[in-house]
């Protein structure tokens, strides 16, 4: 290697640094601009879909915050995240109704104890389709999944960490767990769709042609509230700051004297709890089906990578973008000439976002240059 005079090398690196910062700012600007464009178009021309997208996005965000923290802190893609969310939804169903399938997978068995037997547990709260029983069931499911996630880390991921396995081995283990969880749901609750509440529920009309069920407003508020709690934890408590620090640089966290084992445990506690709540909130709006978990993977990862790995605030915004895009972009494409485009492509939107972000700015909105 040729030896350059020290001054020349340093000024060269200054130029390179300047260029990098410049292009960094441009790609970030372009990304924010595209997002602003999407949001304002959707808000003005498809207000109804925009609101629906925000609601879905806010729930996705709860899953994506956990996913991005695990991704940043433990450094691997948790492909079991979607299936674990569904497991949380089913746990809430189980606590609420006490139902599992019996000898045959199409015959239900009632275990004889459940929250919905408690007096008044299913009476609709105000205009909502469900009562406090479901809320209690979701809370229990969150606790169970928090414990489950910590346990899974102890049994599977921690031994892999100790051995210094590569990220691919972690991802593979996560995929194995994902399929096991899905099979477990099929074993316990069967393949037929479930719902928390029977019967029809009507939507109300709001200004600008927005039609919403009160359930949806509730879901949105709960999701935003929890995101706010997570914001407080991550940005204003020592534990949360240490989690962000570890997501930035686990080695330096260790060297700084941070008890990384404890931080990892708390990460799984939060991620597990959020997964259960997010899964259950999604299922209030739709049916519960074991296979839905795998379909959540793409939107969750699109949101996480869009926001920047390890950046919870990024995951939140990324999830809103994915939600709004998913709900409104088919309509958008129809309006610009693809009249025949099928609504069946909705799930493909997350994939398109993923490819775009990988081409444009793989480190995401909030990702820092390294």
């Amino acid at each position, binding site marked *: 290697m040729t030896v350059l005079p020290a001054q020349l090398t340093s000024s060269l690196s200054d130029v390179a640094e300047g260029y990098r910062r410049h292009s960094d700012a441009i790609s970030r600007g372009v990304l924010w601009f595209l997002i602003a464009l999407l949001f304002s178009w959707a808000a003005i021309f498809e207000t109804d879909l925009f609101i629906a997208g925000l609601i879905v996005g806010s729930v996705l965000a709860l899953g994506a915050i956990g996913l991005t923290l695990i991704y940043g*802190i433990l*450094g*691997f*893609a948790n*492909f079991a995240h979607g299936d674990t969310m569904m497991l949380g939804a089913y746990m809430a169903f189980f606590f609420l109704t006490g139902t599992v399938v*019996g*000898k*045959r*997978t199409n015959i239900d068995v009632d275990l004889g104890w459940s929250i919905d037997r408690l007096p008044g547990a299913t009476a609709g709260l105000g205009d909502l389709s469900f009562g406090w029983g479901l809320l209690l069931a979701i809370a229990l499911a969150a606790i169970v999944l928090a414990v489950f996630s910590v346990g899974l880390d102890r049994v599977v991921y*921690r031994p*892999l*960490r*100790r*051995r*210094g*396995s*590569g*990220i*691919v*081995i972690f*991802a*593979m*283990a996560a*995929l*194995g*767990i*994902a*399929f*096991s*969880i*899905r*099979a*477990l749901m*099929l*074993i316990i609750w069967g393949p037929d769709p479930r719902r928390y509440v029977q019967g029809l529920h009507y939507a109300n009309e709001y200004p600008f042609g927005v039609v919403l069920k009160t359930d949806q407003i509730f879901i949105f508020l709960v999701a935003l509230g929890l995101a706010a709690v997570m914001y407080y934890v991550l940005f204003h408590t020592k534990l949360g700051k240490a989690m962000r620090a*570890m997501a930035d640089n*686990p*080695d330096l*966290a*260790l060297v700084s004297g941070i008890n*990384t*084992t404890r931080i*990892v445990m708390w990460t799984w506690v939060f991620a597990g709890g959020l997964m259960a709540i997010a899964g259950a909130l999604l299922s209030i709006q739709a049916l519960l089906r074991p296979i839905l978990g795998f*379909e959540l*993977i*793409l939107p969750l*990862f699109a949101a996480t*990578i869009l926001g920047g790995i390890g950046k919870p605030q990024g995951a939140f915004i990324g999830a809103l973008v994915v939600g709004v895009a998913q709900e409104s972009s088919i309509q958008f494409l129809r309006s610009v000439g693809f009249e025949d485009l*099928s609504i*069946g*492509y909705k*799930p*493909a939107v*997350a*994939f398109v976002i*993923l*490819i775009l972000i*990988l*081409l444009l700015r*793989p480190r995401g909105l909030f990702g820092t240059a390294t």
Partner: protein
Amino acid sequence: MRFERMLTPLVLLTVTGLLVGTTLERSRSLDGTINFLAFFATTAAIYAVFSLALNVQWGYTGIFNFGVAAFFLVGAYTAAIFVKPPADPESSVRYVGGFGEVFSPPFLGGDQWVPFLVAMLAAAIASGLLAFLLAIPTLRLREDYLAITTIGIAELLRRIVIQEDYLVNGSRSLIGIPKPFSGYFEADTNRFVYLAVVVVVLIVVFLLVERVIRSPWGRVLRALKEDEIATAASGKNVFAFKMQGFILGAMFMGVGGAVFAFSRGSIGPTTFDHFFATFLIWAMLIVGGSGNNWGAIAGAYVVWGIFTITLNLQLYDLPSLIESRISFIRDFLLGLLIVAILLLRPQGLIPEERRVSIWLDRRMRKSTPGDPAATNTSEP
């Protein structure tokens, strides 16, 4: 040490014994057993082609393809429209292509094999092209981005098949895919002829992979898997080599999809489920031992063997609690098996042909003093 050497033969023997035993019990005749085992062997050999193909990508190049289903699907459908006659406008079965007659030379019984060779080639090219397109945005980035993207493309392709029902008959199955040499033999005999065809394809793929891996090009690939930075430093174009490894593996997957389509005679979008078309193949490679072609084949045999044995179990008088969900229980255990192998025996049945374990190697590289890439040792 003794146990180590005994493990692989023990597993192979147990699986074979249970397989033959349960099949005999199930069909209660020698003919039936042989027919069933021929069908088993055909499917296992097809899966072995996929396992070898994945080994090229993951075992030798370190490319993390979680969307094998996408290449499986493209290969199978491409092959199907290359061997089928043109779609009948009167019929409700719609599909594009139908080049079967185009590539049937009117001599030497050409219609019995030429279209199939053309179809396999077309499947390989289509699948390789898909790999090329996917590689452009992802191959330069961290390795798990490719995993996420390939999961996505598998899902997207399945949706396209369903939505654009004029392409390959939508969510209904595309039926009537012929088998090679089927004009010469009775259906019963042709089962064995087709097994022979698949075995020949497997042997050809195996020899090709072995040859390629031992070539100078293959050595670069393996060096790349061990240490990308060092390989780049020695003047190799890392991106190009990874791209080539990815495309080569995808082309073999296309061939696998083609022989699968001929074997089944009918394919639909549900055939290319993530579980059957991706996870199972990963399970095979991990059980067998990635980085070793014999391991890839052994893994396909063992995993598909376990699969078939559980199918056979349904004929016994199991408690209905278990019987009604035996396939779910099997999937559950298979998922756990993968995790257990990663934890307890990451090298699989037949380890990579190297002395030092690659995990040890990785850790060393990770924490080499002054290495700027040193990250992710989150716990002491």
